[in-house]
């Protein structure tokens, strides 16, 4: 399983960079763990990229695990109704 560490800010400003990071991750085989402990700020652009990434993993039949998703990530994803689509675990707040 390869691990992907998300930056503390995942917004429109960083979107191009994040997309590059996610594309690079897709290029590596196997399951993926996303470390989202640092995410303090995320917006629609950031969530949309993560969603596309998660969907692609799904299509490729690869497993995804979230590591310590930050409450801020929950808040923003919840606001957009994307908690389930992002496969965020439904336990932590």
């Amino acid at each position: 399983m390869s691990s992907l560490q998300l930056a503390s800010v995942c917004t429109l400003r960083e979107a191009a960079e994040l997309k590059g990071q996610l594309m690079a991750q897709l290029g590596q085989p196997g399951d993926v763990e996303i470390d989202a402990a640092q995410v303090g700020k995320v917006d629609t652009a950031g969530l949309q990229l993560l969603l596309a990434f998660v969907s692609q993993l799904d299509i490729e039949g690869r497993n995804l695990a979230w590591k310590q998703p930050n409450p801020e990530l929950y808040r923003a994803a919840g606001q957009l109704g994307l908690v389930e689509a992002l496969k965020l675990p439904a336990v932590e707040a």
Partner: protein
Amino acid sequence: MSIDLAQFHATFFEESREALDTMEAALLELDESGGDPETINTIFRVAHSIKGGAGMFGFSDIASFTHTLETLLDELRNSRVALNERISNALLQSVDVLRAMIGTVQHGHEADPERVATLHAELTALVKGAGVDTPPPPPVIAVEASTPPAAAPAPAGAAAPESTSARNQWAIRFRARQELLTRGNDPVRLFSELAGLGPLDARPDLSTMPTLEALDPEVCHIAWDLVLTSDVARETIDLIFEWAEGDCDLDVKRVVAAPAEPAAVTEATETEQAAAPEAAAPVAAEAPSAAAAKAEAPIAAPAVVAAPAAASAAAPVVKAVEGSGKPAASADSTSIRVSIEKIDELLNMVSEIVITQSMLNQLATRVDGVAGDALKSGLAQLESNVRELQESVMRVRMLPVSFVFSRFPRLVRDLSHRLGKQIRLKMTGEQTELDKTVLEKIGDPLVHLVRNSIDHGIEMPDARVEAGKPAEGTVHLNAFHKGGSITLEVSDDGKGLDKDRIREKAISRGLIDARDALTDDQINELIFLPGFSTAEATTDLSGRGVGMDVVRRNIKELGGSIELKSEKGKGTRFVINLPLTLAIVDGLSVQVGEETYIVPLVTIVESLQLKPGHSNNLVDHGEVFSFRGDYLPIIRLHEAFGVEPKARNLHEGLVMVVEGDGRRAGLFVDSLLGQQQVVIKSMESNYGRIEGIGGATILGEGAVALILDVPGLIRLAANSQPAARLIA
């Protein structure tokens, strides 16, 4: 690619300032109307849009301040608190504080943090006094409302009790357009604000999501169907999306209504059913259960598909309703914001065309025959078109005088409160249009005049009653067109100028001699002399020595003039005459030797040829001639400008009677050449200020001609003959 939100800051600052002007005017109106709901709504909308913008750009101090302000306004709007003077003062001060806060973030000027904190506390106290706690800002509510594991549907904020008892539901179809994200409209923030109104269920439509590789990270590819359970009005929802207008497609429909409003329900349902009899119903039926089921189960695919269909089918109806209810939205799209520099560049180009066209006219006189006639006819057409073009561009620069007048209701209110006077401000002719530059520069002189009227003119209420006048004094601001110029008047029904005191003061300052016999008008003129002030005590309102002389000088710099009429016990009236624009002047070209000068038409009274012996050399008064019972000084232009004239004897040339600042004089020139409109080229910006010359222009044949500053010339002449000063 990163997006720099700073590029939108300037627009936010500018729009916020305009919004604050609107808010201030509405607050003053509110004072008078005693709490008209529509006016309160206007103020609320302004506060809300500033809050939205500030939140978007991360100006958290402004957002937090406007949030509290908005809460108080909401209490007023819902009649949970009645308008009183304390609230009214706090609201007006909020406008000042917000202006300062915007200045702080824009220019780094230090706003007074203590004042901000004090007022913020006062607003909070007023809100609390109304029996409500300020709800925390919406994003905080949203954290708790939307975090799935928390599961508890009721947010902790004050909005919760209202929301849970709400029976209205709003179905909102939200689809982003290309630019939504890059214009700073983040759905996370928008939905957070919505969630502040009540429980919000967001169902994403991912049908148009591309793969990660194909995804443009700056475009929002997700659409949403939102269900908001809240009793708020449609308008409140629109306000949240106000900043995203044009960047998203939005359909808002009420799907379940409170039984308390049966009429409204029936109407809404009928409208929707008429448009989409099959589609509208499933949404209404599905929405509540979907909201409840949200936390437990994944979103059922059919719901995602059915909802968009319903929304799009009903869309035309919703849009039609919006069209009739929101005329302002369509009005917005008919205007654009253009920087004044661009208009000035355009105006400058038009000026150059005028000059070129004038040159061509001169050349055309040398072409004879059929070709010459055709050329002249073509040029005549060009001249007419250029003139129209010039007028159109000039009109773009014109703004109504209300642009300046709008600051006075506040000024009069504040000053009259402070001085304990009762003053009514009357404004007429606010729609009269004037060049923007002139308007901007006339603001300060007008403020000075109005302050003077309030401070020195209008008496205390008891003194007024004693004098047989109503306790309430009136200050009247008036604007109207008069020929090619505009007149602004500031008048009051106060005590008028005390001519004896003015005279005494002028004598004590050595400005006039005790033996001088002055007419009333001449005495009034004394107050325009530098350093003249009769204020008993210096207050911070007026009487600081920067007085009427500065007012007159500023107005003169605009090519205008100021006069005053005053009657003891009846009041004072200041009359300001201003040119409509600073860019073009109608003038008469005159010849002196080889030179051509332009005399502004507005200054010319008439032209005449003196017969030999009709002029006199008076001791101390220089050369004068008799004109309708007055003796006017003669200014020989060739002497003033040091040129060799063709005519030296008065009867060989012409004398033009000109007037400036209420003084008349005769300008002696060789001959008149003709009337023409000339484009003013500033001497100050190209060379330096010269007394007696207002600017320069380029004539048709390409030569440069000086435009005379008639008041300046008269002043120059008077200074070289000191004793003649008061005669003219």
